[in-house]
C-alpha cells in the first residue's frame, strides 16, 4: 500500500499565534509538498495573498452539521487531498480554536490513508495563563495544552526572564507530556513543526539554515535493533529532544520499521521493503543534551536481544 500521509494538527485558542505559524509556512515553503487545511472561525484569517501564491493546496473547511457527521467537511477534505494526482507529502491541519485537539487527532490520525504526526499547540506566552482562567474557555485552553506533544510558545520576547521561568513551571504542570518550542513571528523550522529536516544531515551535525534555533543529529545503528529496548530508550529521552524519526531494522523480524517520536508520543510501525536510514534526532539548543541523547539511543540500539 502507499504510505499513509502524516498529519500535523496545529491547535491553540484564538490569539495563540497559530495562524501566524500557518502564514509563515505558506510564505516560506520547504522542499516538501505540504497541504494546509484550515478550520478556524476566529476573526483573524490566513493571509489570502499567501494562499494564492502558495504552490501547495490550501483548503478552508466549512462548518458541517453541528450535531452529527453528516456534511462533515474534514473527512471530505482529507479524501480529496488523498485523491490528488500528486498527493502531498504532509498535511498541516489548523484546527478550529475551539476544537479539542485530541479528538481531531483521533479523526485525522486514523482517517484511511493518513496517520498522525503530532499535536502542536500554540500558546501566547503573554496571555495563556489568563486565558486558562477564563470563565468560558479556561477549561478548553487547559485541555488543549494537556493534549500537546509540542507547545509552540509565541511572543516569548515580551516576557522578562523570571516571567518566562514561571510560565515554564506552570506549563510543566498543565501539560506534563509536552515539549516546549519558543517561537517568534511564527517562525518554527519545518524540522520541529512537521518533523521534516531536509536534506538528510550527516551524523552528528548542525543543521544549516536554522542552526541558531535547533540542531539535528543522525545515528546509524550497525546491527538490527531490539525494539523493546529502543522503545524504553525513547521514553527516557531528555525533554530537550523534541523529535526522533527514521527507519531501522527490527532484530526480531528482520523487517524495516518506521520510528517516530514526538515529545512523549512514540510509535514504531512496520515499513517492510524500505531501506533502513538510521534515526534523526531534533532538538533545540544547546547541543550537549542532544549528544547525550544520541549516546543513549546508540547504546539501546547496539544491545543485543535477550
Amino acid at each position, binding site marked *: 500500500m502507499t504510505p499513509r500521509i502524516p498529519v500535523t494538527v496545529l491547535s491553540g485558542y484564538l490569539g495563540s499565534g497559530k495562524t501566524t505559524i500557518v502564514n509563515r509556512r505558506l510564505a516560506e515553503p520547504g522542499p516538501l509538498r505540504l497541504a494546509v487545511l484550515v478550520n478556524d*472561525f476566529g476573526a483573524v484569517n490566513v493571509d489570502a495573498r499567501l494562499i494564492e501564491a502558495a504552490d501547495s493546496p490550501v483548503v478552508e473547511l466549512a462548518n458541517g452539521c453541528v*450535531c452529527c457527521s453528516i456534511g462533515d467537511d474534514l473527512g471530505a477534505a482529507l479524501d480529496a487531498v488523498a485523491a490528488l494526482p500528486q498527493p502531498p507529502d504532509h498535511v498541516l491541519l489548523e484546527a478550529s480554536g475551539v476544537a479539542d485537539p485530541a479528538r481531531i487527532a483521533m479523526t485525522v490520525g486514523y482517517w484511511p490513508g493518513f496517520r498522525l504526526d503530532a499535536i502542536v499547540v500554540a500558546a501566547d506566552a503573554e496571555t495563556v495563563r489568563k486565558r486558562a482562567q477564563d470563565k468560558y474557555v479556561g477549561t478548553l485552553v487547559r485541555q488543549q495544552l494537556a493534549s500537546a506533544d509540542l507547545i509552540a510558545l509565541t511572543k516569548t520576547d515580551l516576557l522578562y526572564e523570571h516571567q518566562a521561568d514561571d510560565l515554564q513551571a506552570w506549563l510543566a504542570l498543565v501539560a506534563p507530556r509536552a515539549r516546549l518550542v519558543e517561537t517568534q513571528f511564527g517562525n518554527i523550522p519545518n524540522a520541529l513543526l512537521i518533523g521534516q529536516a531536509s536534506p538528510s544531515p550527516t551524523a552528528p551535525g548542525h543543521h544549516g539554515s536554522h542552526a541558531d534555533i535547533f540542531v539535528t543529529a543522525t545515528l546509524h545503528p550497525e546491527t538490527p535493533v531490539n525494539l523493546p529496548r529502543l522503545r524504553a530508550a525513547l521514553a527516557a529521552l531528555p525533554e530537550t529532544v523534541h523529535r526522533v524519526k527514521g527507519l531501522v531494522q527490527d532484530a526480531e523480524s528482520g523487517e524495516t520499521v518506521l520510528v517516530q517520536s514526538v515529545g512523549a508520543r512514540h510509535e514504531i510501525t512496520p515499513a517492510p521493503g524500505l531501506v533502513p536510514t538510521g534515526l534523526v534526532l531534533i532538538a533545540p539548543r544547546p547541543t550537549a543534551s542532544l549528544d547525550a541523547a544520541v549516546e543513549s539511543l546508540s547504546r539501546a540500539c547496539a544491545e543485543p536481544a535477550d
Partner: protein
Amino acid sequence: MSEITVFTAKKIITMNAPMPEATAVAVRDGRIVEVGTLDTLKPWLDAHPHSIDNRFAGHVLMPGFIDPHLHPTLGATLLPCHFITAMEWVLPDRTCAHVTSHEAYLARLAEVVANEGAEEEIVVTWGFHRIWHGNVDREALNAISATKPIFVWQRSFHEIIANDAAIAWMGTAREDLERHPQIDLPSGRFFETGLAVAVQAMNKVLLAPQRYMKGLELVKRTVHLGGHTTIGELAYPLMNDQLEWQVLSMTMGAKDTPFRTKMVPRALQRGNFEGSPEEDVRRVAEYAKRSTEKMFFGNNIKLFTDGGFFAELMQMRGPGFIDGHHGEWLMAPEAFETYARAFWLAGKQIHVHCTGDMGLELALDVLQKLQDEKPRFNHRFTIEHFGVSNPEQVQRIKDLGAIVSANVYYVHELGEAYWQKSIGYERASQMARLGSLERAGVKFALHSDFTMAPAMPLNSAWVAVNRIAESGAVLCPEECISVEAAMRAITIDAAYILGMEDEVGSIRAGKKADFTVLEQDPFEVDPTALRDIPIWGTVFEGTPFPIAS
C-alpha cells in the same frame, strides 16, 4: 378580485385576544376579510359576491401552526432511511410500528432488506437502540444478508453497525479500518471518530441529489402532516448553498407546497477565506434577492454558542456533568461576540443556539454588552433550544428584552436519561423551564428542531403542558405551562419569533388565511390528550389541503 369564501366551523380559535372565538371566517385572495359569525360578517357578504363553505362545520379551526426552527435538509437525509424504532413513528408515507425486542428488530430488518430495500444500493436503517433491541452486531446482520450492504444507524446518530457486505462496499482498505481504535470490525461497530469514516462513505448515497429531493418531498409532507402552514429553516445552508437552494426551490418552493418557509442564514458559514464580520453581513444581505413567496429571507441571522444537546456537548456551569466530561463551543466566545456585534449594529434579529446554562450565560453576557454599547428596543434576540438554564437567567432574559424558542421535547426523551446518566435529577428535571418564562412574561415559542424532535406542534405542546417523560413520570410540574401559553407558542408567539406576527399566527382581518383544521378543541380535551387530537389538514392562503389518508 375573487369571490369571498366563508368557512364556517364548529369553533374558530383565533388566538387574537379581543375576539378569542368565532364560527365563521371570510377569505378572499388568500387573506382574511373578517372573522366572527355569519351575522357579524353580513355587511361584507351583502356587498360582495361570496360562497359559504360548510365542510368544517364539525371541526375546530386554529391559526395555521408555526414551527420557527427546523432543518429540512437534515430531515431529507433521514426520512428516506428505513425507520425501525422503539416508539411508533407516524410518517407521511408510512406508519412505523414500535419494535421493542431483539427478535422483532431482526425480523423487521430482514423484511426491509427483502422488500422495501431490495432495489437499493445500500440499506440504511435508523432507530436502533440497545435498550430495546439488544446486541445487534455484524454477525446478526450477516445472517440477514451476505450480499446487501446494511448500515444500522443508532437512534441518536452516535453509532453505526455494518455487515460484511457494507464494510466491503465502503471501499476502505481493511487495514485502515482494523487499526482504528473507534472501529470494531469483529462486531461491525463504528463509533465516535470512527463513525465519521462510515458516514463519509455513506454520504455519496445519503446526499445524492435524487435521494435528497425524494427526502425533501417527504419533509414537505411531514410538515403538512403536523398541521404547519409556516416554518423557519433555522440555519441555511446546512452544507452546500448551490445544491441546497436548487433542490429546496424545486420542492419546498413549488406551487403546490401548502406552507411557506422563512430562511434564516447562519453566520460564519466560511469555507471561502472570507472571514471578516463585515463581509459576513454583506454575504447574508445578498440572500434577500432570492426571496420568493414560498421561501424568503428576512432580518434574521443564526449564531451558535455551545454544542448539541442530544450529543451531551452543551457547556455546563458548575458542577457540570456527572462523568466529568466537558461540553464544547461551536464558536469561540470571542468570535461569537464579534459576529453578534456586527449583526446587532446592522439591526438584525439574532437567533442564538444555546443548550447548556453556560452557553446561555455567554449569550446573555454578550447581549448585555451590546445593549450597553448600542441600546435597541424590539431587537428580539432569541435564545434557541433553551436546554439547561437557571431561574436567575430567566430574569436576565426578561431584563435584556430577549425571547425564547424552546425544544421542550428534550424533557420527554432526555429528561430521565440525563437525570440518571448526565447531570442528575435537579437540573435534568428542570430542562426547558417554560413555566418560569410564562410567569415572567417572556415570549416564547415551541419548536421541533426536526429531526431532533417530531415535527408535531401538538406533541410539543403536550410535552410543555404535561412534562411527561419517557416512562410516564412527570418531571418538575412547576415548569409546566398553561394550554393557552402552549397554543400561543405554536401560533402567534411563534410568528413573533420569526418577525411575522403582522402576517400570520392569529385569525383576524388582513392576515394570511392560514388555518389548522382539528377534529377536537385543544382547550376542551384533557391536557394529557393534546397530542392525540386528529388533524384534518390545513388551509393555506385560503385553499384547503386535507391530509391524504
